[in-house]
């Protein structure tokens, strides 16, 4: 089946991201296609590119990246939730006259409409919230 996850909890603050990544591995291990992860609410903080957790703790950003590299999972970040919270890619930073950026590929800023489309086009959507 084609799975999507909706992640709404910030990394390190809540278990939601950890639970979602653990579930993602199990989905893949059962032979499903994990096509999309959509980040909304504080979940958008999972994409913060400068995240520097202690070396003896799970590196959530790298884990999301590996999901994309190894399985082609799209990592979609709600743009409205992201801008409020300071998550801008280079294009949005330029558009808002800011120096630097805080989000980069494989994460993509997208509209909330994509979440609705994901819900429509995938077989299962499972949400992990704080």
């Amino acid at each position, binding site marked *: 089946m084609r799975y999507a996850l*909706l992640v709404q909890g910030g990394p390190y603050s809540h278990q939601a991201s950890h639970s979602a990544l653990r579930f993602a591995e199990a989905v893949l291990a059962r032979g499903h296609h994990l096509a999309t992860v959509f980040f*909304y*609410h504080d979940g958008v903080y999972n994409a913060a590119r400068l995240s520097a957790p202690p070396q003896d703790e799970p590196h959530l950003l790298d884990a999301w990246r590996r999901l994309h590299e190894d399985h082609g999972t799209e990592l979609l970040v709600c743009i*409205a*939730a992201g801008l409020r919270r300071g998550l801008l890619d280079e294009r949005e930073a330029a558009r808002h006259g800011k120096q630097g950026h805080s989000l980069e590929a494989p994460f993509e800023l997208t*509209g*909330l*409409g994509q*979440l*609705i*489309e994901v*819900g*429509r086009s995938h077989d299962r*959507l499972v*949400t992990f*919230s704080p």
Partner: protein
Amino acid sequence: MNDIPEGDLLVILRHGPHGNSWLREGLDAALVAAAFGQRVSLLFLGEGVMALLKDQQEGPLGQKGTQPMLEMLGMYDIETLLVDRRALSERGIEVDDLCVSVSLVEGEAIAGALAHHRQILNF
């Protein structure tokens, strides 16, 4: 209400205004889905019913309330607003205290609403 509406998306709203952003983000999702042509219903449970009270104002620092978004629901053809009767009565809120017109639900009708929508987003 006896007729459980069918639809593409049920958005459940369980948080009140101002305290956090769940209500606004849930309404955003509902409005976007409607703009994409989906048949959307809203279900207000627990503290979510506080979203519907008349006479709400701006929050601290001029933070917008949710009433402007509620007023947009009609324009987007979101007309099914299901409200948990018990959540109102626990708070002493009457239907006349609400700023929009709603359908009261309780008991099995709540589970029915979930069953009758293809997709559910819970905020």
